[in-house]
């Protein structure tokens, strides 16, 4: 990953350059203020590159595993599928069995898929990506919209107009930024057909995370999560999990930015005792939380 290619996008994405006053303070190690100002963008870009690359090295940087367990999925009735007649052929690998005609989803597989999905969501939120929650179930429309609002992201739970993603410049305006991740709480629309946004997101190379029930087609969804999408406790659990993942990731981003900004010059190891600033013990403890498995 070339730092040069990354630089313009990051500066535009809201990584604020330090104000001139603080630059003069930190410039004590480098000498003249002019030299300090010249090296500012370089250090910013190094810092930003390190902030972005650091989480990718850990398998579970945001510790999403602790947010749920197989028991909590069971209690939320995530394992209950539709009747065997409604079963979609491509959901068969994710189904544990059929109890008196009702499909039971394998929660061990659900747990693995959910961990991957939450991890991806958290990483996208960490990088400041736009997340769109999509669902066409009217029963949960309000819940999903309030979930999106509470984590500072977006939701679309109404009629999905034809070219919204594929013809965005015409429908939404010339320079519109499309979502970087689409989360489907319900993959089907009100007539039990796959939601148009699934296919359109695949066309526009937008990764998708989706809760797929036993009557859904998981093929085009990047990170499918086999689970019940009809019971209120199950949908509430999924909303809560995604909200926590996004909020956690954004919080971690703020912490890491503050930490790296306070540490100043590039080079020091995050646990470097020589790093200036009082918050290092607290910040190190926070980093410790991120590093622990």
């Amino acid at each position: 990953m070339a730092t040069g290619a990354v630089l313009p996008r990051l500066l535009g994405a809201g990584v604020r350059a330090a104000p001139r006053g603080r630059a003069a303070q930190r410039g004590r190690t480098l000498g003249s203020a002019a030299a300090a100002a010249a090296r500012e963008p370089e250090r910013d870009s190094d810092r930003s590159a390190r902030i972005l690359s650091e989480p990718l090295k850990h398998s579970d940087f945001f510790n999403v595993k602790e947010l749920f367990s197989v028991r909590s999925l069971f209690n939320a009735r995530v394992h209950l599928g539709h009747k065997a007649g409604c079963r979609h052929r491509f959901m068969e690998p994710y189904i544990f069995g059929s109890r008196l005609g009702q499909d039971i989803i394998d929660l061990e597989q659900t747990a693995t898929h959910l961990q991957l999905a939450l991890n991806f969501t958290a990483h996208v939120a960490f990088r400041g990506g736009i997340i769109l929650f999509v669902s066409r179930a009217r029963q949960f429309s309000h819940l999903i919209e309030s979930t999106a609002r509470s984590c500072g992201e977006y939701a679309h739970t109404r009629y999905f107009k034809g070219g919204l993603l594929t013809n965005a410049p015409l429908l939404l305006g010339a320079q519109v930024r499309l979502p970087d991740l689409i989360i489907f709480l319900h993959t089907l629309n009100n007539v039990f057909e796959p939601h148009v946004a699934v296919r359109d997101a695949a066309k526009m190379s937008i990764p998708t995370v989706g809760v797929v029930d036993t009557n859904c087609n998981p093929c085009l969804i990047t990170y499918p999560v086999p689970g019940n999408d009809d019971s209120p406790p199950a949908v509430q659990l999924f909303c809560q999990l995604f909200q926590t993942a996004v909020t956690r990731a954004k919080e971690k981003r703020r912490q890491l930015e503050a930490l790296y900004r306070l540490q100043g010059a590039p080079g020091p190891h995050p646990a470097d005792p020589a790093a200036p600033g009082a918050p290092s013990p607290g910040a190190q403890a926070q980093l410790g939380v991120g590093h622990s498995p």
Partner: protein
Amino acid sequence: MRRWINPEHCLVGLEFGNILPSSRTRDLIRAGVLKEKPLWFDIYNAFPPLREPVFRRPRLRYGKAKSPTQDIFYHEDQIRAKFYAAYGSGPKAFDLFNPNFKSTCQRFVEKYIELQKLGETDEEKLFVEAGKALLAEGVILRRVEKARTQQEGSQVSRKSESMGVESQTALEENPPLKEVPQAQHLESPGEESKGLSPP
């Protein structure tokens, strides 16, 4: 900041090819069509999904091909079938709000298994003993057998007249199933009586 991907670049492989969005994006970047790497690119490469999101056309199953999904049966289901055949739904209604709820049938099954562990082998005897044990605890079980057999007799004769072929094929399917053959044989009379009793 141009972030809009021309969908014409992406339509190529959706239905017939198997072009992944990740490989498509990688090639577009290499060709210079996409000026900057999308946000998800590094994350996707670091944490790829278990299955690549490639389009597959759902094909129907023909002939004797059946789905590999298995039925879920437990050994206790045999006991439950006998209980429901003898006593109907049971005196207490199911309270599904309580996650630790034990129905009459479940208590009966537990008693049955306890007695079985003590060394009893005769099924009839175990059944009667379990019923007596529940009675000792204060649960009254009312048999519905006699009224049932009369209904069963008349309804079975009507069934055999109209759906004789269906019942024959159902009986034919039972022996080839190797999973829990005993359960199946015992389930069918249990299920038949369950189906015939009024809901």
